[in-house]
């Protein structure tokens, strides 16, 4: 091989390695789901309405069998596959959560308590079960199909267990984001955002399938069962 050919080969190989490294870095390490913006058009002092859902499946990622959160974009009204939510600081957030997944026991039943919400309660509409009525403060996941997922932000002291859909329920969701026609449970609660900052949140149900004691996969991947609240001034 001639000298110019060898130089070209080395340069091409070098660029391929560097390009591959940059691709891996950008694609796997730096990529994040889009941020769902709940601050745009928000009038100071007014509450923000946030609508989210938890689904047993999703049809918008490379892991369709992973459980996942979705958030409804206030701008488009479309469900967005993201767990990064931008919220205004020091503002009341009224959350409506549609839960389509079946239930599992909590690893620590302590997280069956509603904490950090206004009044330390949530309201369950009971579209699927309706056994507890409004103003629920504790859900026992050990003896009933109590909890499917939680919305928990330990740094903020927030913990909200979402009651699950019975395994025996008919018309369970098989296509995420789930249509409202599928069996689901509606939970509402409110909380007040703190000052500006990024606050992680997660689900405390070990719903990450057969990985790391249930805490792998969706539980450890931003965009599925964990993310952060991007609170801005």
């Amino acid at each position: 091989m001639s000298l110019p050919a060898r130089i070209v080969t080395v340069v091409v190989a070098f660029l391929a390695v560097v390009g591959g490294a940059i691709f891996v870095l950008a694609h796997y390490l730096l990529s994040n789901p889009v941020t769902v913006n709940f601050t745009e058009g928000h009038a100071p002092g007014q509450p923000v309405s946030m609508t989210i859902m938890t689904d047993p499946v999703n049809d918008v990622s490379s892991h369709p069998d992973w459980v996942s959160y979705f958030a409804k974009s206030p701008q488009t009204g479309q469900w967005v596959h993201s767990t990064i939510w931008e919220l205004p600081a020091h503002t009341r957030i009224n959350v409506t959560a549609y839960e389509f997944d079946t239930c599992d026991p909590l690893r620590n039943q302590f997280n069956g308590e509603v904490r950090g919400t206004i009044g330390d309660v949530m309201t369950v509409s009971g579209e699927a079960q309706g056994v507890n009525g409004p103003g629920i403060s504790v859900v026992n996941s050990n003896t009933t199909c109590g909890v499917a997922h939680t919305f928990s932000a330990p740094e903020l002291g927030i913990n909200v267990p979402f009651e699950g859909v019975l395994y025996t329920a008919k018309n369970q969701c098989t296509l995420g984001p789930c249509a409202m026609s599928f069996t689901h449970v509606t939970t509402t609660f409110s909380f007040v955002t703190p000052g500006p900052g990024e606050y992680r949140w997660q689900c405390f149900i070990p719903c990450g399938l057969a990985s790391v004691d249930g805490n792998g996969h969706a539980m450890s991947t931003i965009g599925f069962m964990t993310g952060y609240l991007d609170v801005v001034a």
Partner: protein
Amino acid sequence: MAAAAEPGAPPARSAGPNHGLRIFLWWLPAALAADLVIWFIWGPHLPPGAMSNSAASQQFDLRVLAVTGAPVLLGVLIFAGYAMITWRVRADDDEDGPPIEGNAKVQASWIAISSAIVLFLAAFGTYQLIAPAGAGAGEGPQPIWKPDGKPLLVQVIAQQWQFTYRYPQYGGMETTQLELPVGEPVQFDVTSLDVIHDFWAYQLGVKADANPQVNNVAYTTPEHTGEVTVRCDELCGLWHGAMYDYGQVVSVAAFQAWAHQTEVSMAKVTKTLPAFALIYTPNEIKGLASFFYQAGLPGAGGGYYGNQYYPNEP
């Protein structure tokens, strides 16, 4: 009349300055000054502070180590500096240096001093590990060194990704907040519900691994009120870096008031908790997942609750 030098014998050394004495005279005041600065000025600020007896003990250990090590370090540095200045090559000096020969006195002194320092530190370290009831470290499920008196029991339950604290002497209540009374011995029973974590209450000088199915006991006695930072110190997954919280050491009266108030306010969730135990095995807790067990239904959890609950899971 002096005898003439034997042919071929090494040249006799000329009587020069006493380098050893010179080095010693440089080293002595420097070492004294360094030790005084370390002990009286730097020492009180060494981590982890003096909020508890175990923290104060660790700070004392660091002071002793620093005071012991500083003279050694200064001796090496001063010798090196002296050698570079005194025995440097002169501009017009092309001769070889004198041959290095053994010096039994220096060698014996070096070995004796090194041995004394190392043996002292070994004995001191062992004593310091035992005397303050384990020095705040996890002693395993059957601790050898215990404090006097009846300690306040605080169970530390780690899971991905938070610590919770259970107080068996207050109805078995569980909280997200570590609250401790000043002046009373505390026994931490540290365990985990999933992977390996590490309970590190920095200002208290307490650090104990949190292993699933293991009760790791550590002791301390808070001696000052204030805020305590608790961190996980074992890489445990995605939110390891966010697995921290803040606790408080308060007066005994304030602690009693907090404990009784919390016991009442947490009563509803306390009823749903498993009975207090030193370790928790979720698939052995009475009532856990009975819904799934009775129905023989599949679910998530990765077999954590036992395959009998999840026959369809791999």
